[in-house]
């Protein structure tokens, strides 16, 4: 039997590329198209006109920067808190370990609104309502699930002997963690960071419920920019 070229496989691959990259490609083209009308396959006018229009508005650029700042700070803080915690979940055995690990799922199991009412009560008492750090703390909750569960699984997958070998050769616990454990877990840690970042960036509705009624984050302006869209999804506090 002679080997045939895997035509079926190539067809499937091609379809996948079209389905996945097609829409993204359209968006990319639209971003730089100034005029693109029907029968033309490609835009007739290219340019950055809409970029200037969009970024030229004070109501757009500030929310974007605020959004990115809040998201970066929240995600990094979550990583600093959750990665060592994940390491503890993976390596140490202490009473209530499983329960505690599952409690991070619980954040996503209960209706958010009840959770935020409770948080708002606490925030009111300690004066965090309407502050930058109030938003950061609330946003951190969104990313906790990824930042605990993915790194815990990653740390569990690292054979303890790898760490013991380094410790045995004279390295301190911190050095073992930084030079042996972290590099081994790096792909998973990076994935959890990206997922956490994206989750926080997209969870725009949480802070508006309680933390900063006047805040303008990126997603609000995206919704309100084309007026036609804002009528269907009214950003109540933007």
């Amino acid at each position, binding site marked *: 039997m002679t080997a045939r070229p895997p035509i079926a496989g190539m067809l499937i691959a091609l379809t996948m590329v079209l389905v996945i990259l097609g829409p993204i490609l359209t968006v990319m083209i639209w971003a730089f198209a100034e005029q693109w009308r029907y029968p033309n396959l490609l835009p007739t006018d290219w340019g950055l006109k809409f970029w200037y229009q969009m970024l030229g508005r004070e109501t757009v650029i500030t929310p974007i920067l605020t959004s990115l700042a809040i998201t970066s700070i929240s995600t990094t803080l979550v990583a600093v808190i959750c990665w060592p915690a994940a390491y503890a979940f993976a390596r140490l055995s202490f009473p209530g370990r499983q329960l505690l690990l599952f409690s991070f799922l619980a954040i996503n199991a209960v209706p958010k609104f009840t959770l935020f009412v409770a948080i708002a009560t606490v925030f009111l008492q300690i004066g965090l309502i309407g502050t930058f750090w109030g938003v950061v703390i609330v946003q951190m909750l969104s990313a906790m699930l990824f930042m605990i569960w993915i790194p815990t699984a990653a740390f569990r997958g690292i054979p303890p002997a790898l760490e013991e*070998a380094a410790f045995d050769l*004279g390295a301190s616990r911190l050095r073992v963690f930084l030079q*042996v454990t972290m590099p081994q877990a790096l792909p998973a840690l990076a994935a959890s960071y990206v997922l956490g970042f994206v989750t926080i960036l997209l969870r725009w509705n949480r802070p508006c419920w309680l933390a900063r009624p006047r805040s303008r984050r990126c997603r609000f302006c995206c919704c309100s920019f084309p007026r036609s869209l804002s009528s269907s999804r009214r950003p109540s506090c933007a």
Partner: protein
Amino acid sequence: MLRLTDVGKSFGGAQAVAAASFSVVEGELVCLLGPSGCGKSTLLRMIAGLTEPDTGVIEIAGQDVTTLPANRRPTAMVFQSHALWNHMTVERNVSFGLRVRGLPRTEIADRVAAALDLVGLSRFGSRRPAELSGGQAQRVALARCLVVQPKVLLMDEPFSALDAHLRANLREELKALQRRLTLTVIFVTHDQEEAMELADRIVVMDSGRIEQIGRPNELYLEPQSLTVARFIGQTNICETTIAGGRADWFGARLLTQCADGPATILSRPEDLVPASNGAPARVDRVTDLGPMLRLHLTTDDGGQLVWLCPRSSAPQTGSRVSLVPGRLQVYRNGERIGTAEAARPSTAHARTLA
């Protein structure tokens, strides 16, 4: 060089190691031998400092290290899984212990080169561990330990994941290296052949207890307990009773100095010899081992015997033989109480022969 005194460890009520005491002199290779779960690895980890003992004292080179963590003990351990770090090159793996100690860069380079040369992997410095074979990886793991010049080198079943041929080669290499560098080595294994070949002395462990400590030939020729006898080499076991200095061995008569009472008599398969007054038996099965043949026999009173016999004098399957043991060990309640020997042919019989 290394002394353990009453070192013990329990895990949640289960005794893993019970009051282990022994010492190792400089340049000695000692094997911890025992079935899996006997506590030998736990004992090794306690010497390394990776597991904290509940009781006892561990001294290395005269210094009490019992409470020191692993990173401050003058030991280095080779793991069964080689435990190389895949994100570093072979060179970085080997230099890790020296970098931790903050040595100058030139000295690190020299010592890493020397260590890799010692294990015959000079040209592999820039490789990644994933690109090495199992034997090479274990050699790198050994170099990684040797480079820090540990007072005691610990090895936890380092060759058990490798195939038999490679294992034999590495054993020889290790033994030669150990002699040349006069390394003090504690080597954990469950393979009695490996222990017999490598060790200057063997510590036999079972269910957390040390059964016997001795040179390989001592353990083989005079095992102090049934457990050791069964674990090291093959044995023929005969449950019998001693009365008036005599005992019955599958129909043959034995003479012994041991006190009267029930006894277990052990003999090695190669120690059986044909004799006119021996235990009558029939050959059930013959296995060809190459230099020797292994014969499985059933005695007339239903006992099972294994006989290792030279190719030239081997009987056929189904034929009848009469055997006595040339060398015997007598046990009571699992402990060795003495020896016995086969009775000479009776005087009447001897006279007729004359």
